[in-house]
């Protein structure tokens, strides 16, 4: 089986769908001839032609608006937004239109579109190349929000997103495009090729939306994470020696509540980890749900380890990033509690 990093896996997902389904096309800023600033669409224009993979004006509102119209026609456009930090000019079209089309027309018109965008920190990108805006989408009924954490899932989830008949916000953890990240920035980065998750079938397969994955089994504590933080949380678990169960949510909406509840019912303790700012982050929804579902089983307050409620500051990359140290402290607090 081919070995791929996350960029290659995403490229393979697009290539697979462009090959299988003439209704799929993809476009975005620098996504055509050049192949995208992160190379995710590399070679697709050459292989599938100008009409299937093309460059777009710097106009996120236009990108999404046009994609919605294509979706209403019956295509399955995949839009690349160059950085999640730049998705806001398209926010109105996403929230007011893509998310509501099916409902307001009673199924007469739909928007089966996928909006891909790299998100998250850990790359010294400063406050406009490091954001994690997932909670701004999970609050909006009608949208699905998906975040992979491995090359294998990246391809399978992206294919599932493209084949899904509802609009999907597909957030790509750019920090782990080339290799997983323990959060120890002082340690050398290992390429994906060193890990089994880099074994990605060349052919079509889907990883179902709405299903979480236990990436580390454990009995004493449940850690909920997604994207880059899945790997950081795993590292923290190893280092503390706490028998923690780490769950990779993979899809935030619809959420795999069963997997979450089952784990917390078992452990009675829960730590939630994300890079986004804390207040009203998706961790808040997770904490609310966990206490609603497992209140009588909880033995300690649910802990949230998150980005701070400030913009992401360039010089303080590693103080801002919720690294293994902060996660480990929270895990210990949760074990004591």
């Amino acid at each position, binding site marked *: 089986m081919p070995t791929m990093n996350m960029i290659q896996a995403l490229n393979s997902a697009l290539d697979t769908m462009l090959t299988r389904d003439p209704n799929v096309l993809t476009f975005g800023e620098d996504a055509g001839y050049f192949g995208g600033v992160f190379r995710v669409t590399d070679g697709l224009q050459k292989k599938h032609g100008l009409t299937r993979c093309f460059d777009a004006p710097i106009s996120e509102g236009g990108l999404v*608006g046009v994609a919605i119209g294509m979706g209403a026609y019956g295509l399955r456009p995949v839009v690349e937004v160059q950085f999640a930090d730049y998705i806001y000019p398209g926010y109105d079209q996403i929230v007011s239109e893509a998310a509501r089309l099916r409902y307001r027309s009673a199924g007469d018109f739909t928007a089966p579109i996928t909006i891909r965008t790299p998100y998250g920190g850990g790359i010294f990108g400063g406050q406009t190349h490091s954001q994690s805006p997932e909670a701004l989408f999970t609050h909006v009924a009608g949208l699905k929000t998906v975040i992979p954490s491995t090359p294998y899932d990246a391809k399978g989830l992206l294919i599932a997103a493209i084949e899904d008949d509802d609009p999907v916000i597909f957030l790509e953890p750019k920090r782990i495009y080339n290799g997983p990240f323990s959060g120890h920035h002082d340690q050398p980065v290992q390429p994906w090729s060193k890990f089994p998750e880099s074994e990605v079938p060349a052919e079509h397969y889907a990883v179902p939306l709405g299903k979480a994955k236990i990436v580390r089994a454990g009995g004493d504590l449940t850690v909920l994470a997604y994207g880059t933080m899945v790997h950081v949380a795993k590292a923290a678990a190893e280092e503390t020696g706490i028998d923690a169960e780490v769950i990779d949510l993979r899809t935030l909406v619809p959420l795999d509540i069963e997997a979450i509840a089952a784990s917390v019912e078992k452990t009675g303790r829960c730590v939630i980890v994300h890079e986004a700012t804390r207040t009203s982050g998706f961790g808040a929804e997770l904490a609310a749900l966990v206490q609603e579902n497992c209140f009588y089983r909880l033995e300690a307050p649910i802990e949230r380890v998150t980005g701070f409620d400030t913009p992401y500051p360039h010089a303080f990359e590693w103080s801002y990033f919720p690294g293994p140290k902060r996660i480990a402290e929270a895990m210990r607090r949760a074990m004591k509690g």
Partner: protein
Amino acid sequence: PAIDARPHDMMELAFGLIRVLDSAGKAVGPWDPKLDADTLIRALKAMVLTRAFDDRMYRAQRQGKTSFYMKSTGEEAVAVAAAHALDREDMCFPSYRQQGLLIARGYPLIQMMNQIYSNAKDPIKGRQLPIMYSSKEFGFFTISGNLGTQFPQAVGWAMASAYKGDDRIAASWIGDGTTAEGDFHYACTFASVYRAPVILNVVNNQWAISSFQGIAGGDESTFASRGIGYGLPSLRVDGNDFLAVYAATAWAAERARANLGATLIEIYTYRAEGHSTSDDPSRYRPADEPKSWPLGDPIARLKQHLIALGKWSDAEHEAAEKDAVEQVREANKAAEAEGTLGQNRIPSLKTMFEDVYKDTPWHIRKQRQELGV
């Protein structure tokens, strides 16, 4: 001009005003579409029916049978001329003031009323404010409450149609005030860059609720001239002149179908009544302004033309008006029998939780159950 003329060579059309009907009701000049009388009579009847529909539904709102209504009075030619100039299969992305498209295309009035009354037969299940119709079957895109969003969507639909080698084109309409939204700019940019087969209409009825068109920049230049910077052919048309609107639309449609790209059309008209049932125009414009509006009533002008042609008479017109009122009365009786807003004769409560997603996820199912349905 020839449909393949260079936009740069027709710039003056963005600053002038394309007209066909003269003051005597004669069709004059190069834009005369030379339509046969039957077509003109069908169009006239559609405009009359649209006005009768608006009047009845306005009253229905005043009678408390629904929450809201918006008329297109004085602007009937905008939608009805387009409906005749476009193919039946072309896709329309309208604003809330082009109900004439549905009526001219023969969409059942009762369906419109069921939507307005949010009753159990409402095709969109009571989910939208009155007049936010949706009908894929009739090539009418679901109306959004958010201004302007349909403009780039129409461009995307047109790009998809071109991509598929489908010869259907798209058309969209926004108001003068809405041109200030980013969506106007997105639509023009993408339509220009990708030569999308789309007609982008700006309906300049000179008012945006209480704001005169100048607040959107209309005093500094024409809205049609906004197209120049994108290299789009840009036409400015007398919107109360059915033949002019028809001709401009037909020209743009032919151009789009020939893969020559998009056209921007400013349709210059006048909002003869209030913005909506929530509005009282006497608070911000002279009460007699509508009377003194120079470009006249599109229905009266087409009627005058047909009479001048000897194809129509006052008696026939009166009969047509009576007939329209009758059609509306009939449809309304049937619609009211299905229920009006507040009578609680609405779609079953469980439908409230449907169509958020194709398949209802657990959390929405759970919320439905909490409500006991």
